C-alpha cells in the first residue's frame, strides 16, 4: 500500500493505487509519533528513569526473557494459556446460566418477581469485592478465580438478555401467532433472534468484566497467569516486565473480544448494515 499524504488524495482513483483513508494515516502517524517519543524520552534523552517506565530496548529484552526462559513461574505462553482458560471457563459458565435465567425473567413476570429481589441485594456489590470471600471459600487456586469471573460475567448476561427479551417486538410475536406458530416456535423463531443483538451486547460486557476480574484476582494472589506475572514484576520493580504483562493482557483481551464479535456477525447475519 502506498500511503498518501492526508488531504492530497487524487480526485481520480487509480486502480493500482488503493486510496488510504485519511483517518488511518492520522492514526498510524500518531502511534508512530508516540513510539518515537517513548524511545526519545527513555533511551536517548533519559527524561524518564527505568524505575518509572522502561525503554523500548528493555521492553524487548523482557519480552525475550519471559518468552524463552519464563518469568514468575511460567513462560509467556503458559501465563496466557492459564489466563485465557480461566476467563473462558468462568465466562462460559456464567453465560450458560445467565442467559437462560435472563430469558426466563424476561419471558415470565412471575420468575422476574421471584429472582429480582435477590438480584437487587447482590447486584450493587462490585464483582471485585467477591475476591476475598472467594479466597476464603476456594483458597488461591483456579476455583476462586473461576468463581469471581462467574460472578462478574453473570450480571451483564442476565440483565441484557432480560432487556432483550422484554423488548422483543410485540407485532412480530403477533405475526407468528396469527400464522399458527406454537409456543416453542415463537420462542425459537421470534424471541431468540429478536433478543440476540441485546444478548450479544451482554456477552461483550460479560467478557470485558471477566478480564477485569481475572486480572484483579490474579493480582491478589495466584500461582500462574498474566496477573501473577504482573504482580511479580511489580514486586521486583521490573518495569519492562510490567509493561510486557500489560500488553499481553490487552492483546489477549482484544483477541477474545474479536472472536466474540466474529461469532456475533455470523449469528446476526440478517441485520441491515448500519
Amino acid at each position: 500500500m502506498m500511503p498518501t499524504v492526508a488531504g492530497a488524495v487524487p480526485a481520480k482513483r487509480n486502480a493500482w493505487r488503493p486510496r488510504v483513508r485519511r483517518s488511518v494515516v492520522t492514526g498510524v502517524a500518531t502511534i508512530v509519533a508516540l513510539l518515537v517519543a517513548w524511545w526519545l524520552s527513555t533511551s536517548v534523552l533519559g527524561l524518564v528513569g527505568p524505575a518509572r517506565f522502561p525503554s523500548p530496548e528493555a521492553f524487548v529484552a523482557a519480552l525475550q526473557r519471559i518468552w524463552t526462559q519464563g518469568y514468575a513461574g511460567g513462560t509467556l505462553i503458559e501465563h496466557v494459556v492459564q489466563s485465557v482458560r480461566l476467563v473462558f471457563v468462568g465466562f462460559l459458565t456464567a453465560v450458560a446460566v445467565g442467559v437462560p435465567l435472563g430469558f426466563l425473567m424476561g419471558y415470565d413476570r412471575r420468575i422476574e418477581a421471584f429472582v429480582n429481589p435477590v438480584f437487587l441485594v447482590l447486584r450493587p456489590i462490585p464483582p471485585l469485592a467477591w475476591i476475598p470471600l472467594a479466597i476464603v471459600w476456594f483458597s488461591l487456586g483456579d476455583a476462586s478465580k473461576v468463581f469471581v469471573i462467574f460472578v462478574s460475567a453473570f450480571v451483564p448476561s442476565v440483565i441484557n438478555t432480560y432487556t432483550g427479551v422484554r423488548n422483543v417486538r410485540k407485532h412480530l410475536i403477533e405475526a407468528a401467532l396469527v400464522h399458527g406458530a406454537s409456543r416453542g416456535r415463537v420462542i425459537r423463531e421470534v424471541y431468540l433472534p429478536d433478543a440476540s443483538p441485546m444478548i450479544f451486547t451482554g456477552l461483550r460486557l460479560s467478557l470485558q468484566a471477566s478480564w477485569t476480574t481475572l486480572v484483579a484476582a490474579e493480582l491478589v494472589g495466584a500461582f500462574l497467569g498474566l496477573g501473577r506475572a504482573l504482580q511479580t514484576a511489580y514486586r521486583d520493580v521490573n518495569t519492562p516486565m510490567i509493561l510486557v504483562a500489560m500488553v499481553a493482557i490487552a492483546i489477549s483481551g482484544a483477541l477474545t473480544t474479536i472472536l466474540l464479535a466474529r461469532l456475533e456477525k455470523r449469528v446476526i447475519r440478517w441485520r441491515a448494515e448500519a
Partner: protein
Amino acid sequence: MTRAVPLWLYSLSSLVLFFGVWQGVTVLGLVSPFVLPSPVTVAERAIAMMQRPFAGALLWEHAFSSFLRFLGGFGLAAAIGVPLGLMMGRFRLLDEMVTPVFEAYRYVAPLAWVPFAALWFGTGVGGAIMVIFTGAFAPCLINAYRGARLVDKHLIEAAQTHGASEFRIATEVLLPGALPSIVAGLRVSAGLGWQSLIGAELIVVSSGIGYVMIQGQSNLSPQTVITAMLVIGLIGLLIDVGLRGVETAVRRKWEGQ
C-alpha cells in the same frame, strides 16, 4: 383477568427463601462458620465494627476514606474525559489521532494499571486515584464524544455566525447538547471507578474499605469480609442513585421529560 397469586408474593417469598436458607444452613451447621457465617453473625459483626476500630479505624471511617478517594479519581476522569470527548466530537483531526490510542488503552483491564500506579504515585492516595481514573475514564470520554457528535450541526453554525469563540461553542452549545449522554456515561464510569478502587485496595493500598476485606480474609473472619462487601454495595448503590437523580433532572430539563 385476575392473577391467582399476586406478583409481590413471589418477590417476598424469594427474599424469605434467600435469608431463610442462609440462616438455616448456618444454624444447622451444614457449613462451617469459617466458610459462611449466619446473617445474624454478620449483623453483629457490623454493629461491632461501628463501635470498635478494626484495622485502625471504625467501619464508617474506612468507608468514608474510600469514598473520598473515589471522588478524587472520578472527578479527575470526568474533568479530563468529558472535555477531551467533546473536542474529539468537534475536531476530526483530534478524533483520528486519539481514537487508535484510546482503543488500545481500552483493552488494558483497569486493574492492570495498579503496578504503575503504585510505582508512580505510591500506595497511598495517589496510586488509588490513578487506578480509579483508569477505570472511570473510558465511559466519560466515549459518551461525551457520542453526545457531541449528536449535537445538531446547525446549532454550532448558528453560534459561529453570531461570532461565538470556540470556548463559548464548547461550553454553551456542545456541553449542554451532549449533557444527557454525558450524565449517562458518568453513571457507568462511577460504577467502574468504584469497583476499580476496591480492587486497588485489595492489591496494594493498605487502607480503606477494600483493605478491611483483605484483613478480614487473613484473620479468617468471613463475617468481616461480608460486612465490608455490604458496605461497598451500599455506597455503590448510593453513588448510582445520586447520579440517576442527576440524569433524570437533566433529561427532564433538556427533553421536557
